[in-house]
């Protein structure tokens, strides 16, 4: 009988290991860019003006990757509009980057849902998206005054996240 107890000794750790797999979301990913310098970029906006990340140093930046065909980007856009109005005086800049989209469709989206006036940048070949490790849209990066990525949301931003993270960015020193 004592020998049969060995079976429990072998079985329990194996089963526990597999059981620990529950509750994990195998598709939830942690970005390696957190608390690192945000990759530099210079992209042209829909109005054909060049915008670089370096030019925004000193101000908190909310970098939002989106597309007109993505359903949840519609909801997110409304929250971003609210946030842009709320934090306009604090110098927070929202920057949008198109992901696999055409300028025509993007403009149509903005006409329909409202352009917040912040720069909307074209990203040919998705080079900047790859640079930031974007997996799918929407994804949003919260960058502080020194250009360090402090937070990343995968999926649409919610008012809660905006209310939490933007003040955090404002609190950081330049």
């Amino acid at each position, binding site marked *: 009988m004592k020998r049969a107890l060995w079976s429990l000794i072998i079985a329990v750790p194996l089963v526990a290991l*597999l059981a620990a797999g529950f509750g*994990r979301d195998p598709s939830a990913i942690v970005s390696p860019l957190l608390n690192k310098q945000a990759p530099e970029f210079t992209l042209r906006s829909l109005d054909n003006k060049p915008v670089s990340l370096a030019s925004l140093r000193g101000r908190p930046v909310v970098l939002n990757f989106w597309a007109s065909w993505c359903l949840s980007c519609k909801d997110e856009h409304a929250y971003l509009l609210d946030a842009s109005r709320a934090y306009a005086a604090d110098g927070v800049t929202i920057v949008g980057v198109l992901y696999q989209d055409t300028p025509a469709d993007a403009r149509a989206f903005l006409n329909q849902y409202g352009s917040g006036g912040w720069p909307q940048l074209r990203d040919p070949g998705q080079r900047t998206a790859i640079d930031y490790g974007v997996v799918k849209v929407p994804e949003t990066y919260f960058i502080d005054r020194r250009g360090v990525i402090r937070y990343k949301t995968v999926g649409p931003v919610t008012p809660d996240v905006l209310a939490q993270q933007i003040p955090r960015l404002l609190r950081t020193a330049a």
Partner: protein
Amino acid sequence: MIAPLGHSVILAALILAILGSGASFTAGRLGSASLLAWGRRAAFAVLALVAAAVGLMLVALVTHDFSVKYVADVGSRETPLYYTIISLWAALEGSILFWAFLLAAYTTVFLLIYRNRFAELQPYITAVLLAVSAFFLFVIAGPGNPFQTVSPAPADGPGPNALLQNHPMMGLHPPLLYLGYVGLSIPFAIAVASLLVGAPGPSVLQLIRRWALIPWVFLSLGIIAGMWWSYAVLGWGGYWSWDPVENVSVMPWLVTTAFLHSLQVQERRQMLKAWTMSLIMSAFLLSLLGTFLTRSGVVVSVHSFTQSAIGPVFLGFLAVVLVTSLGLLFARSRELGAPGSLDAAVCRETAFLFNNLLLVAITFTILLGTVFPLLAEVLQGSQLSVGAPYFNHVAVPIGFTLLFLMGVGPALPWGAARLEDLQYRLLLPVVAGVATILILLALGVRGVGALVTFGAAGFVLTVTLERVVADIRTRRGNTAEGLTAATRRLMRANPRRYGGYLVHIGVLLVLIGIAASQSYQERGSATLRPGQSVSVDGYTLTYRGLRPRQESNRMVLAAEVGATRAGENLGSFRPSQNFYTAQQLTVVTPAVREEPWGLAAGLFAGRNPLPDLSQLLHGRNPVEDLYLVLEAVDTRNADQHPQRVPGASPRPAEANRSITLLVLINPMVGFIWFGGLVVGLGGVFALLPARRRQRVTVPSVEVEGGIHRPLQPEEVTA
């Protein structure tokens, strides 16, 4: 109506399975024949009930009764009838119902065949099989219930996953695999029963062997069918991607193969009993583990069914089976642990031991790689992937070694081999292997990995054929039979051995096909307007135009592509992108010209194969697949995202849209499918009972006119 009825039927089956299992187990303890009879009746009743449940589900699917949850999940009025029927196993709950049905069928067949034999084991075998059935029925009745009522019933459903209704092979691949997985319950049950009673004797071992070989054949065919499905349907040009669901199908196969070999050592020398038992019990455990891994959401896979409550239940059952198996093995370790002995270090027994080592090593590696992402995250929080680069790196060397072993093993005799004698047996095969490599090198074939594979294949083939020839020669020397008679009788007398050799040859063909197709694939891709052509590796592909076609459940956007090679017209092909309206999903469907099936089919159709075969003279391999993929339509919009569906609404001048065509030339892939069939055939042959007829001469005396009577013992003089 169907939903509550189906649910009740399953509940009834569950109750009967539990009662039957208990009754059978008690029958074993008490030696009660009447209790055992009740247990058997319960098993038959379970089959009837589960069959009824399957029947109800099929009726619900075909009549589009969307009040049944499973039908609401996978049914659709637009899906063609064939795919509606096979959607029985398209999703999680239905596939578990199918599993339970196959298990009940296997149980019934087994009990009927052996109703008058193995009386000691019958109660426990019945008990174990009914207990496993009870588990699956519990899952169907509870967490994975396909018979839930949906109210109000929707008007239509999404249909099965687009990938699963894209090709008729979906009707063959899962049933073959399931017959393999489920079938492993039987040798497991026999093993458990024999350990409960004492230790397995020779006749029980033969029984386990037979009932391990049957699911092994199904698994082999199912794995090959899955590879073919991946190749011909998924459109990426490959047949194996080390996806977790592929890995879990091959692990029980490897372990059962190891079992079939170690069993032979046990038969001859009465050693390795515990090891052999562990192997066959692990095979069943691995098939359960595989089901768990791919259905619980714990590991990400293209086959992943959604996360559900089924996961923890499966894990619990797995734990129970694991503890029971280990417990029994430990408890019986004295009976199983007879000390072994060998007459020599170099003999077929040790070759089989090495075979086992390598097969178990590959299995463990595949298991480790498959669960490693889970392990890393749980133990360290790291997120990693483990894919083809890892598996290829570790499995291929072990695979090569096994390939060589397939040649060395049959060359070694049982018992003892003198090293000096062995060299003469191996010399001719080595010559053949080296000659193969040198000849291929001279013909211009390159690539070390492929060449070594081909050389090893030559080596193994020569060993195998030399063994068969030697056996025939020996028999003819003893019996003076003609060649065909000797061969026929020899094979019928020893189906195990020759079935095994045939399986080895089949494996060789598969490995040759894999080596060639991995090493010599050619690719080319081009954007074409109608009338334009692209040339890849001697083939010229001309895009003629787009031919969209609306079907009941999907929009088939096919491109007509004409193919020629060295001036010979090979016909017209239609790679397509199939857009399934209900799920808004596009499935890229390739068009494949497969050889050597094309040659064979052409022969039957009266087409002359010589032009194709004459390609050999030009230094081209006639056995290669032409594989066409419609990568994109209207490719001028480079930024076009994937969710905007190309061609969702046909426009005029449809036929003139430009396409991006991907052309793959895959050499010798046909060898894989053919080799798979040979493996299956070999396995089936090995299942045949050995027919050994012996002439018996009876001394007799003539009574009158040609009639003889046998001599009585007292009449026999000298």
